[in-house]
Every structure is written in C-alpha cells, then in structure tokens.
C-alpha cells in the first residue's frame, strides 16, 4: 500500500481514488448511454407525453383543449369505469392468487415426488405460457361454446343442468374469463416455484427429516419461506397482468354481455382508437401505470420487510 506507507494512515488519499473512480464512472455511463437513450426515447418520452395528453380534451389530430385535471376528477364517471375496476378485482384473484396456490401445489408435488415422466408433466403444464393470448382465447371460445367440449362433458357426466352459455351469460362470463387466466397462469408460477425449490439445499430437507419433520412441515418451514422472492415476482407479474387485461377480453367478449367483462384497458383502447378521446384514454393509462407501480412496490416491500 503505497499511499498508506507514505501517509502513515489507513486511508487512501482522495485524489488518486477519485481520478480512477471518475474514469470508471464515465466508462460505466458510456456503456449504458445507448440503452439509456433508447429507454428515454421509447419509455420515458411517451410516458411524459401521455401525462401531458391526460390534461387535454383531444381527438388525436385537431388542436387540443386544455381541461386541467378534469379527465382525472371525472375518472370514475367515465361510463363503465367503476364496473371495469370491479371486474379487475375478480381477475386479480383468478389471475394472481389462484395460479399462485396451484403453482405452489404442483411445484411441490413435482419437485419432491419421483413421478415417472415428470418432465412431460412440467412441459404440459407450462404449455399455456408459450401460446399467445389470442390463440388461448380462440381455444377457450371453442371450449365454452354452447355445443363445445365443456358443455358436452357436463352432459356426459350427468351434470347437464350446469350447461350454459359460459361467455354469453351475465353471471358466468367474468369467472369464465378468469378460469382462462388460471389455466394460462399457473404453468408460469409452477415453473418459477420449481426453480426456487430446486435451489433449496437438500441438506435442509435431510436435517428436517432427521428432526422428525413430515411433508407438511417441510412445506411450511422450508419451501414456503424459501419461495418468498419467487412469490413476489409471480404476484407482481400476474396482478399487474390482470390489471392490464385487454387481448383476452377483446377476442372473446369485447366486454360483453352488456358490460359484464369490461376492463380498464378495454375502455382505454375504445377511448384512444374508436371514439377517439385521447385525453381520457391517457388518464386511464396513467392511473393504471400508477396502480401497477404501487402494487409492485407494496408486494416487494412486504416480502423484503419479512426477509429483514
């Protein structure tokens, strides 16, 4: 330590360190400059522009009229808006929490048990994730149709009374859409949890066994605490995904019957491209973005808080 020997103190003199550090910092900035420029142009600039649009009444081409915060103060009186957010709550449960529980169950079973051909099961359960939503929607439209497989099976097993027009029924349309989310989402959560469980050192399970732990104890005291990080990721992605649901609804019901399956994203699309009322659409977009950020922060904080 040349500096220490010369100065007789245990600290590096500032000038030498800061010069090197400054060079390193500029080098770092140079590395991120290009992606940062893209990020600013593709994400930040449109975000700022959207915030700006949300304060105007604008058809997209004519000169806009400044309306201040009116698009926000009248937010809940936008037709179907309250209903749309109500529907999102149902979808959050079905897209987020049910796949979380099912994924946890499947991952635990598939990781701990030695089942013949389990990689086939994993592949099969993950399959919905690799399909695009439009394909998924078309498949399920067929499954839910009046003479589709679901009603046929119900009839065959003596549950004919339960047959109905799943996507055309005011009561059942939303849960039916939610079930598509469950089917599509739990393969993802399962894979995420499976990776998490595999990363747990096997010594922990062996030690627990020696202490007399059974399968439930293993799950409760080893698997569950180890998967907090994965659960946070799964919940953040599935819940924000539910909040942004558009393509599934657009392809299957267009928000119908009546307004039984409208979502904020569907209203945003209608206001931005069909009506067009770009200011109101932008306000919806901003509110959704803020909600997504809050949800992500809350979930992360809860998990991080527990880890501390």
């Amino acid at each position, binding site marked *: 330590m040349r500096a220490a020997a010369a100065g007789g103190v245990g600290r590096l003199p500032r000038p030498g360190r800061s010069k090197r550090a400054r060079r390193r910092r500029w080098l770092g900035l140079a590395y991120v400059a290009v992606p940062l420029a893209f990020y600013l142009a593709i994400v930040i600039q449109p975000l700022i522009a959207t915030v700006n649009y949300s304060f105007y009444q604008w058809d997209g081409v*004519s000169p806009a*009229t400044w309306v201040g915060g009116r698009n926000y103060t009248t937010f809940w009186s936008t037709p179907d808006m309250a209903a749309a957010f109500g529907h999102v709550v149902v979808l959050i449960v079905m897209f987020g929490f049910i796949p979380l529980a099912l994924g946890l169950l499947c991952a635990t079973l598939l990781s701990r048990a030695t089942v013949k051909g389990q990689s086939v099961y994993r592949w099969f359960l993950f399959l919905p994730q690799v399909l695009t939503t439009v394909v998924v929607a078309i498949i399920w439209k067929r499954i839910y149709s*009046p003479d589709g497989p679901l009603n046929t099976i119900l009839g065959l097993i003596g549950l004919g009374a339960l047959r109905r027009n799943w996507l055309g029924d*005011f009561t059942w349309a939303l849960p039916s859409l939610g079930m598509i989310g469950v089917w599509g989402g739990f393969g993802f959560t399962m894979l995420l949890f499976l990776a998490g469980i595999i990363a747990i050192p096997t010594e922990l399970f062996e030690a627990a066994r020696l202490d007399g732990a059974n399968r439930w104890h293993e799950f409760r005291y080893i698997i569950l605490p180890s998967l907090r990080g994965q659960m946070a990721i799964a919940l953040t992605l599935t819940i924000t995904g539910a909040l942004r649901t558009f393509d599934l609804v657009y392809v299957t019901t*267009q928000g119908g*019957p009546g307004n039984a399956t409208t979502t904020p994203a569907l209203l945003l699309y209608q206001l931005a491209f069909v009506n067009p009322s770009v200011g109101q659409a932008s306000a919806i977009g901003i509110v959704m973005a803020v909600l997504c950020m809050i949800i992500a922060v809350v979930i992360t904080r809860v998990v991080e808080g527990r880890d501390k």
Partner: protein
Amino acid sequence: MVTRRSLLGVGAAAGLGLGAAALAGCTPGGRATAQNSPAAAASNKSISKLGPVTITLLDFWSGDTAKWVTNTLKAFKTKYPNVTVKRTSIDWGQLVQTANLRLKDPTPPDVITVNNGWQSLGVLVKAGLVTNLDNFAKLYQWNKFPSTILRQTEFSPDGKKMGEGSLFGTPVSNSSLIGIYYNDAVLKKAGADIPTDFAGFETACAKVKAAGLIPIGYGSEDKGPNTAILLQLQDFFGAADKINDFVYSTGTVKAADIGMKEAATKLVEYNRKGWLTPNYAGIQSADAIDAFQRGKAAFQFQYTGSYAFTPAQQQTFGYLQLPQPGSGKVVGTGASTAVSMSSKCKHPEVAAALLDFLAGQQCAQYVVDNGLLPLLHQVQGPSNNPEFDTEIKGQQSLDRDNGYVPYFDWSTPTMLDTLAGQVQLLLAGRGTPDSLVTAVQKDYDKFQATR
C-alpha cells in the same frame, strides 16, 4: 437518511415532473386555429395535359372480392394514361384507427377510404385533413346520386354539423345493406312462403317454429354484429327522415321517436316465442352465419356481403328488403364506402376524377361482376344466380324509395357499444325496450354535451 437510491428516485421523479411541466405548455395537435375548409377549386380540363402524374390510394379492399377495384383502376388508366394510381390496401380496422394519423402525415395518401360518423370522417373534417368537394360535386354532377347517400358524407365546413353542409367524401358504386336473408329450402319444409311483407315474414316464422325448425338464425355473443337484427327491425317502424335526423344530430328528434322501442319490443317478442337460435347468447356471429348457410334456420338478419354462397345455395337462398308495415315504403340501413381526398393532395383535379370514376357506371358493373352489391347505377346482374338477383332487387327498391338510413352507430362514438350491450341485456331479461331507448338517449345526450 438520504441514500443514493432515494436520491436517484427523487432525481427521476423530478426529471419526470420537469419533463411533464415542460410539455404542459405543448398543446397536442398544435395551437387552435379556426378550421373552416373552403371548397377546393375544381377543374378537369387539364388532366390529360398534366404530364405524368402519380396519386396514391389507401383502401381496405383486398382479396378476391377486390377484383372490381383492380378493374376500375385499369379502366381509369385507360382513360387517363398519364395518371398512375399507386394503391395500398390494409385491414379495415387498422385503416379506421390510423386514418387520422396517416392524413396528418406530411405525405398523406391522396385518396383514402374512410369510415363515416363523428368519430371518423367528422374528426378528419374538423381537423381540416380532407378536402371540401363541393365544387367537384358541381363539376361531376354528383347531386344525381340519392340525397340519403350523399348526406352520409356531408359536414359543415367547421366539422360541427353532420348530414348537412359540404361534401367531404363520395360514395363508390358498391353498397352494404342490412336486410333479411332466407333459406327457401327450410321455408318449403315448414310449408311457408317467401314473404313479401312484414306480416308475411312473421307468419312464415310462426310456421317454421311450428314445424320444429329455427325461424331466425342468431348469435349475440360478440358485440356489434348482434345489433343487425335490431337495426333492421327499427327500419320497419321508424320514419326514414327521423332516423336520419337522429343520427345526424339535428337535435330535433328523440330516441323514443325513431322506431327503436317498437324494434326492441319485437325482438323481445321473437325471443319469447322461441324464434331465435337456442343458446344464441353463447354463439358468435360468424358461427351463426355458418349455421344459417348450412340450413339451420329459415331467416337471418344480416349485413350484405357476409355470405359466400355456393352455386347450389344460390338457387335456394335469397334476400328481402321488405317495405314498412305502416307506410309501404322501403327503408333500410345501407351505405357505400366513403372515399375522401386529402387536403394536402397536390393534384386535386386528378384525385376528384378518380373519386368520380369509383362512383361510375363502369365501376358498378365491375362490382356486380365481382358478386358484390352495386350502388348508384342500374347494372346487369350475373346470370344463374337468383340469390344475388334478390339482393340487387332489394338495393334497387331502396334507390327507388330513396329509403337509405345511415348506420345507427354513426350517431355517437360510443353508440355501437351501447346498443350492442343493450341488446344483450334486453335478451337476457335484464333490460326492457324502455331502458334500451333510455340508454340510447343518454348516450346521445352525453355526446352532444361534449361536442
């Protein structure tokens, strides 16, 4: 404690805030100026003397059903050898949703197919993006076309009134109507005749039902197409001028006065009598169309151009444009595709000649040869296609009675969604004809208040 992370967060938030504040002074769409599109000067004398001219056409016509466009453009080239029409075709939905941005572009298409109504052509007129065609209308005598068709593309030059004022788009010689299709094979099986009036239609439905067959093929799962039945029923009960006035927002007509309640009442009655396809609430429009073509129902309320009949089916299927039970006049929802000219078009006289050509006799013949419904001109239908003959006959009855009413969804940007949802509520027993009419009026009033 102030950490580096929190400093970064504060910095990012401040940056966003500053950016937003800076942009707040930036009015989207530019500063407001009084938009008032004067009529473009019109002259067709010099087209052949202009030298080589290229104009661009953006439309949605594609596939086999667009042969008439290719043929029309070939004929146009023969008439004006110095003019090249550079054509681009995109999907209808994409065209409608991006037309305003495409026309706002510094190099927009010269001629473009547009959707009618406040939310489409209305926006373009208001923004001064399309040309006022009044002088060309005089030059080419477009007033020879039915006034109910021309009205569909008329706006006040400031874009504040629809259905009156100046012409901002022209029709093409191809129409799309809503009417009733029938399957004579099913009617014969039930011992029913092809109806010639509304009472005959209901008698036939009753007979078909009594024979254990489905009178009206229907699927209401997807919003939009599920309204065809209501709109055709409305055309039986509403006065054409009142429906026109309502859609064009003259402010003189209420939703209760346009036959909507009577139509909704009939629809509920048909539903109660079991005349609609069972489980219609879970059936998509496309599946209902397919089922009807496979002989599963006697009638279907549908848009023309929705079916691809085989030569055998052309002998048994047919189309009805029945007269109103009250007035005896034929009233029907029908329109042509509107074609507009960009206000930045460098050769308006050439573009106007193309508009005129697309609305011409020769184009109408190409349309019919292509198996599509003509408009504006009397043309010879193809031989040995009785089904198509009935469609042409129906369209000509509308021409004769000048009975076109516009698509109802042009009345407000949200009307199609409102109406489609109301039809679903009505048929599910969650709404009444009165609540449907109230919802339509509410939608209308809300839009008028913001216009």
